[in-house]
Structure formats: C-alpha cells, structure tokens
C-alpha cells in the first residue's frame, strides 16, 4: 500500500470529499445538497478502500448511498411545500464559528501528538474476520443492534401513518 498511486488516490479522494461536504453546506437548492451528500458518502467509501477495509467500504456504499441517501430524497419529496432553499437559521454564524474552533482544536491535537503506528498492513482485517468477530466476541451488541433496527422500523412506520390508515386498522 505504498508508492505513488496511494498518495495520489488519497489527495484526490480528500479533495472530492471535502469539496462535496462544502457543497452540502453552500448549495442553494436542497436537492443539490443531497446529491453532494451522496458524493461525500462515495468519497468516504473510497477512503475505506485506501485503509484496506473493503467490506466496510462496500457496506458503506450499499447502506449510505443505496438506502439512507434515497431515504433523504424521499423525505425531500414528501415535503413539497417546505422551503427547499437550503437556507440558514439565525444561529448560522455562531454554529460555524463553533465548528471552526473545534476544527482548530482537533487539528492541533492530531499534529501535536506522536502517534505510535505500526508499519505494515495489519493482518486479520478481512470480511471473514469481521464476521467471526461480530458473532463471537461482539455477539451481544450485534443482537441489540438488530433489536434497535426493528424498533426504528416500527417507529418510523407509526410516525408516518396517515389518519385514514389508522381508521382502517381500527375497523379491521
């Protein structure tokens, strides 16, 4: 994982991801913001490939680009008369200032500490290792996550049921 190709890929991906994230912030039309968001997700997936976490990269693309981005698109479509101009609230300026300070702190910490890193690529990062880890050492959180997903599923359906559907079920 060394040589010219990797650093070239890193700088290209960094540029794409950060520009797309900026696009989400800046673009006037909400739908353009969503499309920039999708581009960011793809960029982050590219980073995962660079960090040799290919299962996570594929999972990221399937879950984020395939499902969550489409969920956001649906939300935008189902709220036709809401303002779609991606405008700012009154708290925009303080929010941006806060995040700039936070960024400063993060960057200082990153570049100040001497990270003790390994040199080669660690073994045991393949999909099968992830599978065994998930089902042996991490099996309890794995089950809790599935319960959480079902709860979210039921919750989302309950929230968006229209009165007619509830009336129908009351009769049934």
């Amino acid at each position, binding site marked *: 994982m060394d040589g010219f190709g990797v650093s070239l890929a890193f700088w290209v991906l960094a540029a794409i991801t950060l520009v797309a994230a900026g696009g989400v912030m800046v673009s006037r039309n909400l739908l353009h913001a*969503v499309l920039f968001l999708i581009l960011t997700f793809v960029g982050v997936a590219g980073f995962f490939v660079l*960090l040799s976490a290919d299962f996570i990269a594929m999972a990221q693309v399937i879950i984020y680009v395939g499902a969550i981005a489409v969920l956001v698109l649906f*939300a935008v479509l189902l709220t036709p008369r809401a303002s779609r101009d991606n*405008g*700012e609230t009154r708290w925009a300026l303080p929010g941006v200032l806060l995040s700039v300070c936070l960024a400063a702190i993060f960057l200082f910490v990153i570049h100040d500490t001497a990270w003790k890193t390994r040199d080669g690529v*660690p073994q045991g990062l393949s999909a099968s290792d*992830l599978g065994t880890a998930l089902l042996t050492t991490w099996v309890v959180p794995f089950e809790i996550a599935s319960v959480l997903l079902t*709860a*979210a599923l039921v919750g989302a359906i309950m*929230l968006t049921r229209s009165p007619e559907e509830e009336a129908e079920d009351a009769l049934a």
Partner: protein
Amino acid sequence: MTPGIEHFLTVGALLFCLGLAIALSKRNAVGVLMGVELMLNAVNLTLITFSRFTVSPNPIAGHTFVVFVLTVAAAEAAVALALAVAVYRNRETIDVDRLNLLRS
C-alpha cells in the same frame, strides 16, 4: 510521500466540523439530518484509521464498531425523516426556527 495517520485524521476532523456546521446552521430539518449523517461518517473514518494504523492485538474491533455505527445511523436516519414527514403533515413546515411550540 505516502499518507500517514495524520492525513486521514485531519480529513476526518475536517469532515466532522463541516458536518457540525451544517447541522447547526441549516433551517430545513432534512438539512440538519444531512449534517448529522456527515458527522457520523467522519467518526467512521476515524475509527477505521485507528484500526488500520495503531498497534493492537485485534484490529478488527474498529470495524465491528463501524458496523454498529452504520446500523445506528440507518435507524436514526429513518426515525428522523419519519419525524420530519410527520411534523410537515401537522405544521406544513419543517423549518427548525418556526418549530417553537414549547416556547413560552
């Protein structure tokens, strides 16, 4: 020169702060959710970076944690958007400023 741990961490930090800025400054509820999604992505990136670069007996822990963050993010996105649609149905607006029913 090949990208080391600082490079990935800086990208993660910048992404996190951009997500925070978006979440705080957007008027539309869906915009806020997009900011939150960006922050979660940044966290995932940092986790994977540590799993790849730091010396640890089983580096796969970082990956499992990212899987859990993915599921939570998906669940949270679903509920948040359902909330936005429900609020829109009652208020015909999802402007974060004008949703101030609890104010005195």
